[in-house]
């Protein structure tokens, strides 16, 4: 009890001292406390987000022996680069018949993935901006109808339509071309195009009416208002749409592998599974891979995943800086 009253006395003393401080000192103290709180919370949360990633990285460097050793959980006894070499071989491997030819397979599917991701991301930045602009800036009859179609496109799970879509593309002779993945992005659809349209819509709604009214009074036509006034104002929307679109297309494990499966048109994601078959052939078995064998090749698989996701990480870090650089410009909005 005595201790308690002592402590509360101390606290009161501290509060009194704080009250008697000047404005600047007060501000400094709240600033420091705020920073401590900020870092504490962020580090705790970041731990939650980064742990699986660290798990992937450390596991990818473990030899098979380390991986099976229960006493080694995080830090491998020695860095085992062989996993990366194996993963690269697995990624350049194709089928049991074809001999893998020193990485050209990897390069071609890397290029395919790059074309799909970069092309679709750029196309979606334009096409989704157009529909987002129509929804966000204009009040016209029938707008709610278009809005509902956007929601529908967002909602319809690809499983519902994928069989029918495949039939459609097959009848147009465009299986194993870039068309099935990239043509819809030209119209604002494609992989989560509706979400991007919504993002643009809400960003365009943000902009005060005075902006385009001024431009119109000065005699700018509708296209010019859109290109020169509105698009530069939603820079941060463009940045996130580009980043998301690029990353999602890069990681797409459903649509692109479905339409592009031939030897020369394959993307990287489905090739990750090739690592398993590569291993199966190394071990002399053919066909099905057992669960145990799958577990055994996990370090190599993780190494492959890291190889595949490296470009995406680079794009994000670069794009992220653009995003932050937009702040000052966007501050001018009002």
């Amino acid at each position: 009890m005595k201790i308690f009253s002592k402590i509360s006395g101390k606290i009161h003393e501290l509060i009194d001292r704080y009250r008697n401080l000047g404005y600047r000192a007060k501000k400094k103290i709240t600033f420091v406390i705020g920073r401590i709180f900020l870092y504490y919370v962020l580090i705790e949360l970041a731990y939650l987000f980064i742990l699986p990633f660290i798990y992937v990285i450390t596991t990818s460097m473990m030899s098979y022996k380390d991986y099976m050793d229960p006493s080694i959980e995080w830090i491998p006894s020695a860095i085992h680069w062989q996993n990366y070499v194996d993963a690269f071989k697995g990624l350049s491997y194709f089928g049991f018949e074809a001999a893998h030819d020193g990485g050209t397979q990897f390069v071609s599917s890397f290029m395919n993935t790059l074309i799909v991701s970069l092309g679709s991301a750029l196309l979606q930045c334009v096409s989704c901006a157009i529909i987002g602009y129509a929804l966000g800036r204009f009040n016209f009859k029938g707008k709610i109808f278009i809005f509902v179609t956007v929601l529908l496109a967002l909602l319809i799970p690809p499983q519902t339509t994928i069989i029918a879509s495949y039939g459609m593309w097959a009848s147009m002779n465009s299986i194993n071309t870039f068309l099935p993945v990239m043509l819809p992005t030209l119209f604002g659809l494609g992989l989560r195009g509706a979400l991007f349209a919504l993002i643009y819509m809400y960003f365009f709604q943000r902009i005060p009416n005075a902006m385009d009214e001024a431009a119109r009074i000065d005699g700018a036509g509708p296209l010019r208002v859109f290109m020169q006034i509105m698009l530069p104002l939603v820079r941060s929307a463009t940045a996130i749409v580009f980043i998301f679109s690029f990353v999602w297309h890069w990681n797409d494990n459903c649509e692109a592998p479905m339409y592009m499966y031939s030897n020369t048109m394959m993307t990287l994601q489905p090739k990750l599974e090739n690592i398993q078959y590569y291993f199966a052939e190394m071990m002399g078995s053919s066909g099905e891979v057992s669960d145990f064998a799958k577990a055994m090749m996990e370090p190599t698989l993780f190494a492959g995943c890291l190889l595949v996701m490296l470009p995406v990480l680079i794009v994000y870090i670069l794009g992220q800086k653009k995003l932050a650089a937009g702040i000052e410009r966007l501050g001018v909005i009002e």
Partner: protein
Amino acid sequence: MAKQVVKLKKQQAHKTTLKFGSFERRRTIEGWTFSIPWIVGFIWFMLIPLFLSVRTSFFITKLTDPYGFGGESTFVGFDNYIDVIKDPAVGEVVFNSFLQSLYKVPIVVAFALFVAVLLKQDFPGRTVFRVIFFIPVILAGVIMAYLFSDSIGSISVFSGMLSSGGMGFLSEIMDVSIISQIGTIMWSSSVEILIFLAALQSVPIILYEVVELDGATAWESFWHVTLPYISPFVILNAIYALVDSFVDVSNPVMGILEEMTSAGTKYGMASALSWMYMLATLLVILIFVLLTRRWLR
């Protein structure tokens, strides 16, 4: 003289109105023009496949003839729909998935907003944290399936977190299952974090300076400046979180759908179920949008 000029101007104005229509009408034309690419794309890539899948839902199909054009499949009318509704297991799963998203969505949105506000501050090391919170999106794909499954050889990462002693005091007051659930929810919120971040960056700095001069604390400026300004994005993120939880692969309804399609003979039932499910979710979202519309403006 002056009167004549006014008259002349009125005449000219009238002429331009005749040429382009009234202001309203011009806006309508422009709006529709900007919507044309979307409408074309929607009809081509959505409506046609959708029409085929609706057709499927009225047939008991054979693999060789999935849309009932060839005459091999039998037309059954609404039987598929009735079968789905009568199946008690399906009803329970659908109901549960709705209930789940009902509590997931507010958590995801609130958490994302909280993190985005923290990340918006200007502090050293900000870039590092921003990259870290984006990791789930990058890792998604094949690798996520491995990380979150309980198959041989992989650990369920979030329950392993307790044993490694992280998460400070959080782990002491909560048990494993809650931690791993919260972990999964947080992991699914990085898209929302990034959208909020971009939204927060579009709030004019002048507004903050003004309220600071008026003596508002950071707390007050959050409630009276930040939140009203980014309210559309709260709604956008809620819609996205709703959709995400409805069509996520881990959603049990998607599991049922896949089971039906992989059996090969139940395409009709699968598309009937996915149609009803989709309409129900659309209804939920439309109600949500209409309810929050008043709050927007």
